[in-house]
């Protein structure tokens, strides 16, 4: 309907910084960057010549912190990296240590882990949905998403005791058992989301303004994906069906029946659709775990002081933002010798300067929103 004019394309090599360039500092305090991200934009009117993200405003040196903590003390720090999917990070860390020490995990604990992680994934996607629309200038979807997220957070709070920075998983199990009220609440939530998701589509997906703002904006071509190491919905929007949950199944994921949503067009709309479809798939997983929840213990016996044997190991999980890999080296001691977090948003943001080149300022913010960045995770 509103055909946009073709944007002039610029190449990095041909653009030189000039004295009278219009330089715009997007951030670190800017309503569109969702956190302390700063992007230096060289602009020609409303068009962006180059974009250079400047990171580190929220840097806490998590990898060094981990070298000064015992293996179990690192656990609470996991939630502080990606605060929107704390349970995925919890899972990565406990699975890593369980792998190194060869601890057993009871089946009920595995079910609770997957159930809560998927709930957490939905809450993360809901928040992203709202924030993305906020970037596009629509305020109402944000609070509509928060309305549903509120139910979800209440539910998770009743189990884990916190609303956002969960520290719930334990080596060899989980921190608390689910009760009948929680299971009923989860069932009600699934029902509620099944009626609410079509509303989101009515309110946003079909909207002509939204479609024009996102279609063909910020296209990631398939041959860019592996050079930048993209993962998660950002990758799956470009047609690559890569999901750690299916490619390297951990926990009980191999027993579950779910699809990995993929879109081919690689633009903001594709990433949006992937995430909304992922909510659907997560609901499917939750329904299955609720139906098959086994009885039994929720925690196996593990020693109080954890000393993984000397060696190295890596563990990858699928967070709502993509692949999180933790690589740890143990020297047999009480503290990790080296921990490396490979975080999804970091790789996903690195392609931004390429995508933003030659785009309008408004589009750059749509792109930034569609990448689903969590800045503390990037800065670590």
């Amino acid at each position, binding site marked *: 309907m509103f055909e946009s004019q073709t944007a002039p394309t610029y190449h990095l090599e041909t653009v030189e910084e000039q004295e009278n360039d219009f330089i715009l500092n997007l951030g670190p305090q800017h309503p569109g960057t969702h956190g302390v991200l700063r992007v230096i934009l060289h602009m020609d009117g409303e068009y962006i010549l180059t974009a250079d993200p400047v990171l580190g405003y929220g840097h806490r040196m998590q990898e060094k912190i981990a070298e000064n903590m015992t293996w179990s003390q690192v656990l609470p720090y996991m939630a502080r990296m990606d605060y929107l999917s704390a349970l995925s990070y919890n899972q990565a860390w406990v699975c890593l240590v369980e792998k190194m020490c060869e601890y057993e995990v009871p089946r009920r604990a595995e079910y609770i882990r997957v159930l809560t992680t998927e709930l957490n994934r939905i809450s993360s996607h809901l928040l992203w949905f709202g924030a993305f629309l906020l970037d596009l200038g*629509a305020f109402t979807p944000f*609070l*509509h998403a928060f309305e549903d997220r509120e139910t979800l957070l209440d539910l998770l709070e009743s189990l884990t005791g916190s609303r956002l920075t969960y520290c719930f998983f334990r080596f060899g199990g989980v921190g608390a058992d689910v009760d009948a009220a929680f299971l009923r609440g989860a069932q009600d939530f699934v029902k509620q989301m099944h009626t609410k998701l079509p509303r989101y589509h009515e309110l946003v997906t079909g909207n002509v303004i939204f479609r024009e703002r996102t279609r063909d904006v910020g296209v990631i071509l398939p041959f860019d994906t592996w050079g930048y190491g993209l993962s998660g919905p950002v990758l799956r929007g470009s047609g690559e069906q890569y999901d750690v949950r299916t490619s390297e199944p951990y926990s009980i994921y191999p027993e579950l029946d779910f699809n990995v949503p993929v879109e081919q067009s690689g633009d903001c709309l594709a990433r949006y659709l992937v995430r909304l479809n992922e909510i659907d798939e997560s609901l499917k997983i939750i329904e299955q775990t609720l139906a098959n929840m086994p009885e039994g213990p929720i925690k196996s016996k593990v020693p109080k002081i954890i000393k993984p044997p000397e060696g190295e190991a890596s563990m990858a999980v699928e967070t709502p933002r993509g692949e999180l890999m933790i690589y740890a080296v143990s020297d047999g001691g009480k503290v990790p010798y080296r921990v490396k977090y490979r975080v999804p948003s970091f790789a996903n943001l690195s392609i931004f300067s390429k995508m933003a080149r030659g785009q309008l300022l408004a589009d750059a913010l749509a792109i930034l929103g569609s990448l689903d960045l969590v800045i503390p995770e990037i800065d670590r």
Partner: protein
Amino acid sequence: MITEISIMRTLLSILGITLVVGVNAIFVVWFERKVAGHMQYRLGPTEVGPAGLLQTVADGLKLVSKQIIFPQSADKPIFILAPIICLVPVFIALLPVPFSATWQAHELDMGLLLVIALGLLNTLGILLAGWGCDNKYALLGASRAVAQILAYKIPLLLCILPIILLAGTFSLREIVLVQEQSTWFALYQPVGFLIYLIAITLETNRSPFDFAEAESELVAGFHTEYSGMMFSLFFLAEYTYMLVASAIASILFLGGWLGPFFPGPVWMLIKIYFFLFLMMWFRWTFPRVRVDQMLSFGWKILLPISLLNFLITAGVMAAL
């Protein structure tokens, strides 16, 4: 002829307009927050006054008591002038607006023209605000406001022209009186009505066309650097402008104060608030349109359709 009575009348009506502007701003801001709240599963203001009605007064007092910050590199005269230039024209534009057959501050033969002309000055205020404060975001916002002006003003005028053809007058009061003889012009001009609705949303810088502010892109657009009372002048100007645009819309298309049972001013207010509610409804539902998309929307869709609408009306009028 200037008589004592006419001077008294003018003074009284200026007082009346000031009252209307003030009360309207207090009420509409509250109304908008309530509408927004309930559309988002919230409640809106509830604490100050009955149902939070006095919240705006409290906010206004807070704004007035705040320090006005002048950026060091700002062009101070322009910086101060900009909000005034924004507010005064919309204030004056209320003069020829009739709230009933008798409730009118000043009858003008060219009332409609005056309102249209004053509407343009608002953009000048925005441009000055963006230019004067030496802020890049504000400058971008102001340049957006200027860039869009032709894209909606021409369709807007092309929607008004058929009304003038139908009514045969520029006087707002007489346009309503003509509608009393026949019927609401919205029924003759449904397409023009729709386009006018879109155009006034554009004209008042309201979402989905709020590029000049564009919170998520430009922080606060042209008024990024304004604080305290000067910011609230922009705010007042925006809401008064909405009032004027809605009043003109109800006069042109919905027969102004005409209606059964209630006295004229009540009907006029009902119609005005209907338009205000529509604009709020738009704002709290839609994402923001991109600037270039809005321009091509203005030139490729609004302009040809409104031109066609005008030509057809003129043709039919000539044939009759």
